[in-house]
């Protein structure tokens, strides 16, 4: 599998696809805070806080959309 990286696509089942979004969220949080944070020493803490907000927000959005599609007449 390692030899095929960067040449062949990786087989991904639909369940692990959602988990793969977490590193992407981390990258977004890191780069956004890297350009916005006033004191660079506070970067790790601010990235962690932003990530928590993002994950909670996405979970809330997912739950909300599920409720709509489940119970909307």
């Amino acid at each position, binding site marked *: 599998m390692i030899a*095929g*990286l*960067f*040449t*062949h*696509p*990786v*087989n*991904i*089942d*639909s369940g692990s*696809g959602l988990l*793969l*979004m977490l*590193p*992407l969220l981390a*990258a*977004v949080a*890191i*780069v*956004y805070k*890297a*350009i916005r944070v*006033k*004191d*660079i020493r506070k*970067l790790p803490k601010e990235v962690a806080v932003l990530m928590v907000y993002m994950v909670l927000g996405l979970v809330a959005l997912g739950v909300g959309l599920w409720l709509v599609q489940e119970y909307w007449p």
Partner: protein
Amino acid sequence: MSKHTDKPRSNWLIAAFLAWIVPGAGHFYIGRRIRAVVIFVTIGATFWTGVAIGGVMTVDRRYEPWWFAAEMVTGVHGLVGWQRSRAEYNKLMREGRIEVEVPLGTSPKLAERMTVDAKLQDKALVAPADTIARAYSGVAGMLNLMCIFDAAVLSAMGLWGEGKRRAAAAEPGGGS
């Protein structure tokens, strides 16, 4: 004139170009070195994680032009990815033809794509890997777009270095 008010001049066009061609280089140019390293590592890792997931055809100008446009904003990363996928595509086109049965009424473009995918075989990118791979590489480009704007605006405003240095320079007599 106090040496603390003599900050290096920077050109916003150069800052923007550097920020595009190598993610983080624009911030390095304007004196924000730690942020430059963080940006360089994060955007590079995000882009190449996408290519690792999706394989060599992740950067695909022919069939995914919008994702391709986003990937090109990563500068050298996108250009290298494009070069690799072009080399793979050209190699396939030089090989013998493979006859593929396409349904009646299939558009020529879709028929061509089906033929290319048949040649690619296990290198062809299908769901869900294609979405995730291009999300990684495309989002890396969009993040770099944000960094390009940031570096250009900071340079245009004449700001240089980290925040604490600017505050020290503003104090009467300058900082230590």
